[in-house]
């Protein structure tokens, strides 16, 4: 999905292609998704995001059918700004706020995959440690205690930061899923870890191969 201020949409398309699937560029202004089987909301600054990241994107014409699709089990991955959009759209609980250090941070981040049984993570081992670029200015995941306990209790924390949290996220949360597990929000950027040449690893590819497998399986 490309919003006017999307930045990593080309990377997302590339990652989907490298995973062996056919990438379909979507435009925020189009109400109807051409028959795609899964949607990636890429990183960037969807509408400038001076107000709150994702606050305005949530109202994009295309978001209606995405929200609708997500509620009916369509796999949706929100990366960075995409994660923010999913939270603003209430498809995922909590919110993302300014980094604790109040600086944009871009670095190679170690993560632990906490759930290897969502459609987006099935190609990982439970507890697998991966290295994926993290780059955000508003990546601090916050929610009230009840919500956090619920997320933990229902095993909806998909990935956690290792080596200390880089942005002030509560309980080191780097990614979460909805109850059904088809909607995943992730602050780090797997689409930047799909080629040896350009990434710190190719660990990110598994997010995209995971969803492809689960889709061809059904």
């Amino acid at each position, binding site marked *: 999905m490309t919003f006017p201020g999307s930045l990593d949409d080309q990377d997302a398309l590339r990652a989907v292609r490298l995973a062996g699937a056919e990438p379909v560029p979507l435009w925020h202004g189009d109400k109807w998704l051409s028959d795609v089987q899964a949607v990636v909301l890429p990183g960037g600054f969807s509408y400038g995001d001076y107000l709150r990241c994702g*606050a*305005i994107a949530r109202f994009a014409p295309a978001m209606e059918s995405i929200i609708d699709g997500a509620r009916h089990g369509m796999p949706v991955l929100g990366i960075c700004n995409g994660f923010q959009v999913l939270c603003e759209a209430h498809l995922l609980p909590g*919110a993302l*706020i300014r980094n604790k*250090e*109040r600086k944009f941070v871009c670095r190679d981040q170690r993560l632990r995959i906490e759930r290897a049984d969502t459609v987006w993570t099935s190609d990982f081992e439970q507890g697998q440690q991966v290295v994926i670029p993290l780059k955000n200015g508003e990546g601090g995941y*916050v929610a*009230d205690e009840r919500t956090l306990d619920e997320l933990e209790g229902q095993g909806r924390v998909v990935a956690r930061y290792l080596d200390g949290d880089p942005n002030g996220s509560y309980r080191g949360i780097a990614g979460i899923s909805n109850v059904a597990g088809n909607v995943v929000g992730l602050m780090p950027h797997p689409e930047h870890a799909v080629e040896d040449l350009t990434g710190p690893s190719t660990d990110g590819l598994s997010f995209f191969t995971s969803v492809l497998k689960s889709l061809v399986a059904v």
Partner: protein
Amino acid sequence: MARVVVDVVMKPEILDPQGQAILGALGRLGIEGVTSVRQGKHFELDVEDGLDDQTLTTLADTLLANPVIEDFTIHR
């Protein structure tokens, strides 16, 4: 034509890195007597008199503030 102000602040239970940083800087500046700082957003809207409170609330509630982490007050 009327001026409406909407103030948005983080819910108390959510930590506020900006407020914290300012509090820290105060120390370095040698300014004493400030015990807490919280940073929020301040919106000044020019609205036509026709615009009803209902609409304003929706506006604040869906766009200007994120109810999950923020509270807002409207001054009309």
